[in-house]
Structures are given as structure tokens and as C-alpha cells.
């Protein structure tokens, strides 16, 4: 597997980014905590851009406050602005939880946020609002790390030694609200009591109707998060989560809650593993309805297997998702052409190697990738599908490789918040999109292509007599 060891970008310049910045992921994770609002400590622009990116992806109004630092504070420190920002946010939104993500600027200034918060809470005699700082300098990590760091900070803030209980913890990476809802449905089907974190299935995908509230209802309750310390186990879909940022590992190390790290339940094998794990934990039989769903997925896989065998997708995005998607491709007989992530240090290469060791073709694996590199590899390897977020749009626009949108962020299609890919049902929905995109491309061109290949301009066979 010579090609598989391509790791980081060799160039200095990053051309067409495959990742976003660290506080952005933090903002998403924090919306999974009930009654919370995010405040980005930094200049105004960063938080406006984060709102824009999230608004476009989730198709929801999303408020992110900023401490609006300007030149003066970069000399004298950002405390005064942060305090003013907290005052205003509390006044307008009345949150119970405020997460403060630091932008690159605040980090470079070296503001001591923990101390600022402490003095602020003392001065204002605030007891009922939890203010949680998360260090998220983008020069150290992408939105993926920001998501994990924030989730871990939330767990660390609330988890307390608690009595043991039979419930389980479920910690999810940056997946769609629809995916979260599906995971919850499966947990309910298996009859388990659980705390899922971060649960933004309602907050970032609000149904129309009812009274409009500034802070969307929903999210994991803080009482529930506190009880995570006493759970019988944690399931974390975080094979690629760096250890220092791992919420599940924190619970294991601090409170002895065993951590079960699983791949995202996308694809038959991964979903089977998830169901098996839930069965082991609950000792309940697998319900008939789930077995039926599995059967429909198997039926779909059988019917489409020969078409899927012709797929050579370029898969790109956050490491947890692309690992799961690569597994799904492999189990359907499709060997990816390119597997690429903008993130570094996710251990992706090590995870992929056993998966790909018997493959007849060699995918290119890229870490810390930009899209210029991905595009070049996709063309070289003859990719015929582009799977991932909107960043890959030039693969379609310029290289004519048909795209399947999944992941984050998505701004060139509607409905990023309800793309469903987990569970048996979600996998089948994804697989149908995958197969049908191939078919659409095929039906749109096979007559012309074959003709061009076999006949000359006059419509006569190319073959020499």
C-alpha cells in the first residue's frame, strides 16, 4: 500500500480549505446543552462568520454573541469587553449556560478567561448561570477538535461523583440533528436509559410552529450531564477523537465509567456492532422492528452491489464521518479513490490500514488536506463520486465528478440539518443516494461515451479493417 502513507500537506499555503476553525465546532456542540448560548471571545468578525456558516448549514436562526474586541483591548486585555458581553447576553437571552469559546485573537492576547469569569461571577453575585470557558485557538485545531474540546469541557464542568445507575452515556461527534434523532430512536427501541450528549437534535432543527423562543428548547439537561459520572458505561462514537479531548475517556479516568469507543453506526457492520453493544448492556432482545430494518438494508445492499462495485468515491470531511463512510464503501464492494480529512492527528491512517489491506486498488489517504490536493488526487485516481460537505463543490463543478452531500458544513444545498445516514434505515437512505447518483451519471452519458469510444465522426467503426 504505497500510496496509503501520504499524510500531511507538503506545501505551506493552504489552497481551498477542507476544514473550518475551532470555535465553530464548539458552538455546534454547545447548542446540545439545554438553555445555552455561545459567546466567542474575540473580534466581531469571527462570530459573525460562525453564525453565517451555521445558519446556512442548519437553515435555522442561530445567535452567537461576541465580545467584539478591538484594538484597545488587544493592548489592555479583553476583560472589560467580556464582562460587558456577559451582561448583555444574560440580559437579552436569559441563558442558564454560557459557553465562552476563545478565538485566535483572544488566545494570542493570552487573556486569563477562568479568572475573568470568577471575578465576574463574584462581582455580579451570579449563582444560577453556569459559565464554561473552552480554549479553542484555531491555530491549534479544526472545528472537529473544537467540537470535542467543548463537549469534554461541558462534561468536566458538570460531572460529579454520583451513585451508580444502569443508564448509559452516549457521546456523539458532529453529526446531523436527524442522525441524533435516529440514534435516540434506536436507543429507545433497545429499551435503554441514556444520556446523549450533545443533543442538538431539536435546538438546531426546530419544527415550525409554537411560540418562537430566543434560545431554542431542547438539548441535554445539565442534571443529566451530572449523572453521566454514575453510568454503567459510555458509548462514544469517537474512534478518531484525540485522547486529551475525549469526553468518554475523561469519564473513565475520573469516575471509572467504562468507555466503549465505537465507529459511527453507518453501514451494516458498524450498525450491527452498535446494536450488539446495546444488547450486551441492556440484556434485552433485539426488537423485531429493528431486525426488519436490518433486513431491508441487506436487501438493498444485495440489489445494488454490482453498481456499487463500480464506485470509486473521493470521501472527504471530518475524520469520524469519513472513517465510517469508508467502511460502508468497503462492505459494499466499493474501494474509495481518495479518503481525505482537513484534520491532523486523528489517527485516521492507522484506523484505515487494516480495513484496506486486502483491497485490490489503493486509495490515497490525505490528512491535513486542502481541496487542491484532494482534487488532484481524485482526478489522478479516477474518482467517480465526490462524497462530503460543500467544500468539495469544485470536484463537481470543475472535474465533473458527481457529488453526494453529507457532513458539515453544507451551504450549497438545503437541509444539511436533516441528512440522515446512521442506523439501518439511515444507511439505506445514504446508500440509495450513493447508488442513484452513480446511476444518474451513467444514464446521462453512457450512450454518448460509448459512441465516442467506438465510432469515428462519420459514425463508422474506428476499428481497422
Amino acid at each position: 500500500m504505497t500510496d496509503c502513507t501520504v499524510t500531511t500537506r507538503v506545501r505551506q499555503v493552504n489552497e481551498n480549505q477542507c476544514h473550518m476553525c475551532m470555535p465553530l465546532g464548539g458552538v455546534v456542540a454547545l447548542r446540545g446543552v439545554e438553555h445555552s448560548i455561545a459567546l466567542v471571545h474575540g473580534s466581531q468578525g469571527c462570530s459573525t462568520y460562525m453564525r453565517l456558516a451555521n445558519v446556512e448549514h442548519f437553515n435555522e436562526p442561530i445567535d452567537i454573541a461576541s465580545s467584539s474586541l478591538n484594538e484597545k483591548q488587544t493592548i489592555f486585555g479583553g476583560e472589560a469587553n467580556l464582562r460587558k458581553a456577559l451582561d448583555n447576553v444574560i440580559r437579552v437571552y436569559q441563558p442558564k449556560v454560557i459557553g465562552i469559546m476563545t478565538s485566535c485573537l483572544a488566545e494570542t492576547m493570552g487573556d486569563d478567561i477562568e479568572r475573568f469569569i470568577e471575578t465576574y461571577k463574584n462581582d455580579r453575585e451570579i449563582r444560577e448561570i453556569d459559565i464554561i470557558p473552552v480554549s479553542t485557538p484555531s491555530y491549534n485545531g479544526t472545528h472537529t477538535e473544537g467540537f470535542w474540546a467543548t463537549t469534554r469541557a461541558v462534561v468536566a464542568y458538570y460531572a460529579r461523583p454520583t451513585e451508580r445507575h444502569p443508564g448509559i452515556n452516549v457521546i456523539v461527534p458532529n453529526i446531523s440533528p436527524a442522525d441524533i434523532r435516529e440514534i435516540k430512536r434506536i436507543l429507545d427501541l433497545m429499551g435503554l436509559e441514556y444520556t446523549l450528549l450533545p443533543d442538538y437534535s431539536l435546538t438546531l432543527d426546530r419544527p415550525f410552529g409554537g411560540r418562537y423562543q430566543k434560545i431554542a428548547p431542547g438539548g441535554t439537561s445539565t442534571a443529566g450531564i451530572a449523572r453521566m459520572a454514575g453510568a454503567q458505561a459510555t458509548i462514544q462514537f469517537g474512534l478518531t477523537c484525540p485522547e486529551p479531548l475525549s469526553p468518554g475517556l475523561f469519564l473513565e479516568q475520573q469516575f471509572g465509567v467504562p468507555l466503549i469507543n465505537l465507529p459511527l453506526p453507518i453501514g451494516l457492520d458498524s450498525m450491527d456492532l452498535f446494536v450488539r453493544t446495546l444488547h450486551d448492556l441492556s440484556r434485552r432482545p433485539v426488537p423485531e422492528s429493528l431486525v426488519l430494518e436490518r433486513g431491508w438494508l441487506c436487501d438493498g445492499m444485495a440489489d445494488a452491489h454490482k453498481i456499487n462495485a463500480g464506485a470509486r468515491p473521493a470521501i472527504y470531511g471530518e475524520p469520524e464521518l469519513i472513517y465510517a463512510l469508508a467502511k460502508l464503501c468497503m462492505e459494499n464492494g466499493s474501494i474509495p479513490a481518495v479518503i481525505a480529512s482537513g484534520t491532523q492527528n486523528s489517527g485516521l491512517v492507522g484506523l484505515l490500514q487494516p480495513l484496506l489491506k486486502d483491497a485490490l486498488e489503493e486509495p490515497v489517504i490525505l490528512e491535513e488536506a486542502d481541496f487542491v490536493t484532494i482534487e488532484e488526487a481524485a482526478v489522478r485516481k479516477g474518482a467517480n463520486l465526490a462524497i462530503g460537505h460543500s467544500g468539495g463543490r469544485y470536484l463537481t463543478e470543475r472535474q465533473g465528478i458527481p457529488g453526494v452531500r453529507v457532513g458539515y458544513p453544507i451551504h450549497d444545498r438545503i437541509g444539511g440539518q436533516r441528512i440522515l445516514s446512521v442506523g439501518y434505515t439511515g444507511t439505506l437512505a445514504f446508500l440509495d443516494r450513493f447508488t442513484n447518483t452513480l446511476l444518474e451519471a451513467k444514464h446521462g452519458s453512457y450512450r454518448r461515451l460509448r459512441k465516442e469510444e467506438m465510432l469515428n465522426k462519420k459514425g463508422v467503426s474506428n476499428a481497422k479493417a
Partner: protein
Amino acid sequence: MENDCSLPAGSAPCIDERQFSIMTTGKNKSRIHCADDSLAGAVSQRACVYSGARVVLNPVTDAVHLVHGPIGCASYTWDIRGSLSSDSEMFRQSFSTDLKERDVVFGGEPKLAACIDEIVEKYHPPAIFVYSTCVVGMIGDDIIAVCKEASHRHGIEVIPVESSGFISGNKIVGYRAAGDALLKLIRPKEGETVEKTRKLNYLGEYNLGGEKWLVESYLREMGIEINVAFTGDSTVADLKKAPGACLNLVQCTGSMHWVAMSLDQEYGIPYIDVNFFGAENTAESLRKIASFYGDDEIMRRTEALIEREMKKVRPVIDRYREKLTGKRAAIYVGGAFKALAIIRQLKELGMEVMFTGTQTGKQEDYEQISSIVSEGTVVIDDANPAEIEKFLLEKDVDMMAGGVKERFLAHKLGIGFVDHNHDRKDGLAGFEGAIRFAREVYATTCSPVWERVKKNPFEEVQD
């Protein structure tokens, strides 16, 4: 549906310090405080200096735009505008120096220089704009020096754009930084001269959805040629011919007035304000341009064009006016220039403007807005979502024109929405833009969706 009041008991939608940024026409005569920086914690809609500069320079199609800073500043602005190009697509690549911790600690200058070298080697662009961002401003990288050296080394233009976002939250500062960069770029080198022509420059036009091409087609029909647009579908070589124009058109007051004044001083090129949003504005602007040339043939052709186009526009507007008369609108857009144009168009469609605001208006702009809206209209600077929501509900608005950040708030409240921002993919300029605008306003204001989604047929029977 209980959308009439969304405020949780006891919460304050408006922050005291913001009271001077909001006024109601006819009530208080006090000046609006629009040049203030965004208030901490208020969820301002404003972007940053860098974004302002980028908007203006981005459509220079064959230049490389290199963002010197951590990754996000570049990722967020990659290809987000619908500027079209007739040739090079270079400007749609997003280059970032992707600063890492070691660069922040030891300085980013070496990495910037290395990135420039890589880019030149790969693409040989005629110019590279290097944008500074907040962190770069903070760590004190001397981008001017790095650009100058790189320029010597490679024999191309490497132009620093001093756009550290934190200098001010206000985009106008960024427009100014971009203007500076443009003036630097077009200044003839020693011994060079630019030939004078009868052509005109078109300032503040970004060719979103091909708007520059559309206006160009009108002008050509009138017998007038565009020299170069600042900066829609321009190239570095075209821009360098800018001093050869006999007239500058200025559209979009926020970004280009200052450049026009500088061009007047430096090269003696006069300028006039134009506005191609709305049919009436378009007609007026075309007449203004024609009369500058003072040529009978041009005047005759101009009138013929206007007559022909108006014949197409009028019946469309009339048809939609029947449906839209009396509907209530709100406007929240980037600059006052656009707000004014939209107010005028909505009034032509028979609508009432209840609420209007911009992110970056100036005092004069707000005075002008106040003078054309009716009494009782709320005028607001740098509105935050809480305020927008409050006024949308309070004023019982049917449709809002704004940017994408407001779209889903409007939808959630069951209110129509028209996108009027830089990220549009189809243009709203000229006569055909006026038709498109009217059609969109109608489609969203009178959509059959609203009456349905606002009903709950199961109110009595749900548990």
C-alpha cells in the same frame, strides 16, 4: 400560532446602550449613532474589516487573494460571492497562510514569504493581494515589508491590504483598506503613461450574477464603453488602465466614494453617482450618464432603450402591485445605498416599509432614509437579532429583505424573505433585475405556504 409576542417574561430585547442606534421617524430628531463600534455581547450583524476589504477586491479575477492568518478567516470567505468572470477563475481559489501556534509565537513573516513563493511558482499571477487578519495585526507581522521584498523577488505586484479585523468591527474601514490597495495598484510607474479615452469606469460594481455585463450591454447600446469596473470581472491589466477614463460611475456609496474622490484629485476624472437597483433608478442613472457625454445621438439612443425596457417592466410591476398593495415590509441590508434602492422599489410595488436598517450606514444616509419613509417607520443601525425579531412582530411585517443571517428568523416567524446580499447568484440590477425583484417579492410575500404552516389543525385533539 402565538407568534405575536416572543419575549420571555422579563427579558429585555433592547440593550440600553443601543437606544441611540434606533429611532422612529417623526418622533425623535436626535442623531443616530451609526459610527459606533459594535457593542459587546449584542450579536451584531457586522462582519469585519477584512471581510469589507475582501468584498471589494475579490472580483479582481486574475489576482491571487492570500489571507494571512489562521485558517478560519479564509475558510469562511471562500467563494461565498456570486461574482462572475469572463475569463480567469483564479479569484475563486481560497489561499490561506494557515498560521499555526509556532507562527503565532515566532512570527508569521517567514511563512507568508514561503506561501507567496509557492503561489508564484505554481500560478505566476500578475498580482497577489495579501490580507492581514486580527492575529497578524496582534503579533505585529510587517506585511508591508514582506510584500515589498516578494514583489522585488518575483517582479509582480504583491499588495498588502491592511485589514486586521479588530481595528474596527465596521466594514467601511475595510472598504477603505481595499480602496488604498486599488489606488496603489493602478498608479502608473515612473515613465508609464495611460492613454486617455472616452470610456468610463464603473466603481462599486462586483458583477454579482453578471450585473456588470448587463449594465455594459445598456451602455454599449447607448454608444458608451466601460473602461474597467471596480472590481467586477476586472483583471489586473484592466485596472491599470483606470486612469484613462473620462468619467467614473459610483455605485454603492459605502465602498467607493472615497476612491472616486481620490481618482478625481489624482487624475482629474469626475464622478457621478448611479444606482441600477430598480427600473426608475436605472432609467435615471442612464440619463445622467448620457447627459454627461452631452451627445444628441447618445441621448436619443438612451431614450429609445429606456422606453423599450420600461414597456416590459411596467406591466409586470402593475400586475404584482395589485397583489402587494398594503403589504408590510422590513429591510435590513449591508449599506444605506441598497436600503434606499429597496425602499423605492417596494414603494413602487405598493408596499409599506415599517422598519429599515443597515449594518454600516452613515449619518447622511440615515437622514436620507428618514426623509423617504413614512412617519412611524423604525430606523435602526447595526440591528441585533433580538431587535429585528421584536420589530418584525410588533410591526406585523409580511416580508423582509435582508441577508442570509436573517432569512431563517423571518421564516420561523412565518414572514416572507428576499435575499439582497453579496451572495446572490442572480442579479437584481437593471430593468430585468427589477422584474426579478418584483417576482421574488411577490413569490415570498404571497406564498401559499404561510397560511398553511401557521395553522395547527390538531390544536384541540393533540395530547
